[in-house]
C-alpha cells in the first residue's frame, strides 16, 4: 500500500520530483479548498451543459439522470457555474 502524503520522506521522491504515474493529479483533493458549495434545483435544469463548459476545474459531469453536477472531491467552489447557468439551477451555499 502506498504511503500517505504526510508519511513520504525525501528518499521516497523520484529524482527531481518527477511524477511517473500519468494522470495522478486527479488524486489530489482540491475540494477542501472550498468555502461555498454548489446546490442544485434540477427541476429547472434544461441539461444545456453550460456549467460544464464554464467550469475552470473541469469537474462537472453528467449524473445518472443526465443532469450536470460538480464532483465535490475537486470542486473549489468558485461559483462560476452558478453565475453562468441560464435558468438559475445552481446556488452557492456556505460550507458548514
Amino acid at each position: 500500500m502506498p504511503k500517505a502524503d504526510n508519511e513520504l520522506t525525501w528518499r521516497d521522491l523520484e529524482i527531481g520530483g518527477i511524477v511517473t504515474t500519468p494522470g495522478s493529479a486527479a488524486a489530489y483533493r482540491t475540494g477542501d479548498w472550498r468555502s461555498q458549495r454548489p446546490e442544485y434545483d434540477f427541476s429547472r435544469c434544461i441539461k444545456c451543459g453550460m456549467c460544464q463548459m464554464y467550469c475552470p476545474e473541469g469537474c462537472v459531469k453528467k449524473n445518472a439522470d443526465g443532469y450536470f453536477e460538480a464532483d465535490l472531491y475537486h470542486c473549489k467552489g468558485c461559483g462560476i457555474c452558478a453565475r453562468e447557468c441560464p435558468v438559475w439551477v445552481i446556488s452557492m451555499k456556505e460550507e458548514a
Partner: protein
Amino acid sequence: MTKRVGMEVSIAVGEVAKLVDVDVVAVYPITPQTHVVEHIADLVADGELDAEYIPVESEHSAMSACFGSAAAGARTFTATASQGLELMQEALYVASGMRLPIVMVVANRAVSAPLSIWGDHSDVMTVRDTGWIQIFNENGQEVVDNTICAFRIAENHNVLLPVMVHMDGFNLSHVIEPILLPDEAQVRTFLPQNNYPLPLHPSKPVAMGDFAPPFIFTEARWAHEEALRASKKVIVEVWDAFAKEFGRQYNPVETYRTERAKTLLFTMGCFSETAMTSVDKMRDDGMEVGLVKLRLWRPFPFEELREAVKGADTLIMLDRSLSTGGPGGPVCSEVRSALYNQTPHPKVISFVGGLGGRDVTIKDFENIVKRGMEIAQSGSDKEFEIYGVRE
C-alpha cells in the same frame, strides 16, 4: 593525439563542446562569453560538430531550452555572463531542482550599474544559492579540463545536477594561452554516453517540474540539498580519474607554498596565478606566506577548507565582488562562518578588489598581505576593506 596549441580560451571552450560531442547548444551571446558561442556556431555550420544549435532570443530562453534538451536525455551545453546570468536566474533554480545535467560556462563579469563589461565575480554571487555545482578556474587549461569533467560529474547518476564552470571574463576568456587540447578519442572514453534515467519519452510518460504542496516541498528541497552535498564525493572521483587519464589533478581546495606559513592569502579564480607569483616573491624576501585557493564553490568544501588553513594565524582574503551593505566579500563571509566554531581558528581579514576589470598585480597582493597583517595586529574588527579605491 593531445596537441599543445596557442589558443584563445573561449575558442578552446568551443572546442571542448566538440570534444565531448554535445547534442544541443542553446545560447545567447553576451560579452565576454561571445567568442564561445560564435565558435560553436562555426563548428556546427561547418559540419564539424553534429549538434542542434538553438540561437534563442534571450538567456531566459537559453536556459529554458536547455531544460527540454536535458530532460529528453541530450547532452546539453550553454554559456553566459553577467546580465545574461541575471536574466536566466529564475530558470537556474528550475534546472537544479529538476536535477537536469546541464553544463554552463560563465565568463564572470561585473553587473550593472554602472555598466561594465569587464570581469569580476558579482554575477556568480547572485546565483550562489541556485543549487548548481560551481567550479572556479585559474587558467585556460583548467577551464578546458573542468568543462570536460563537468559533463561527467553532471551526468553521473549519483549526481544529476547542473554544473557551472567559471572563467574570469577577459582575464581568461579573451587571452591566448598554451592549451593541451585532449585527444577526442581519449575524451570519449573518459566521458561515457549521457544516459538520463527518466527521460521524456512517449514510451514511458513522466511529468517534470510538478508543483509541491507544503506537505512535500521541504522533502523535495532536502533531497536536492543531500544530492548537492553528496556530489562532492563524485566530483573528487572524477577529478582523480581525470588525473589518471590526462595527468592534471584538481582538488576542492588547493594550496601553494603553505609550509610553515602563519599568514595565508586566499583567492578564487584567475587572480590565484598572480597571487602565486606574489607568494614566491614574498618567500624570496623571507616572509613565510602561503596561498589557499578555492576551486569548488558549490558544494562548499568545509572539511577541506578547515584542513587547508589549520595552523595559520591570519587568513587574508581577496573577494572580486562586494556584498553591498553587508559583510564585504561574500566568499570571505562564508569562510569566516565555516571557521567560526573551530578553536583555534585564524583571524580572517577581508579585502574586496579587482572589481569591474581592475587589475590586481603582484605588488597589489604584497600590499594586501602587509595591510592585512597590520589589521590583524591592530585587533580591528572592521568587516572588510576595499583595496585600491581612491579617496
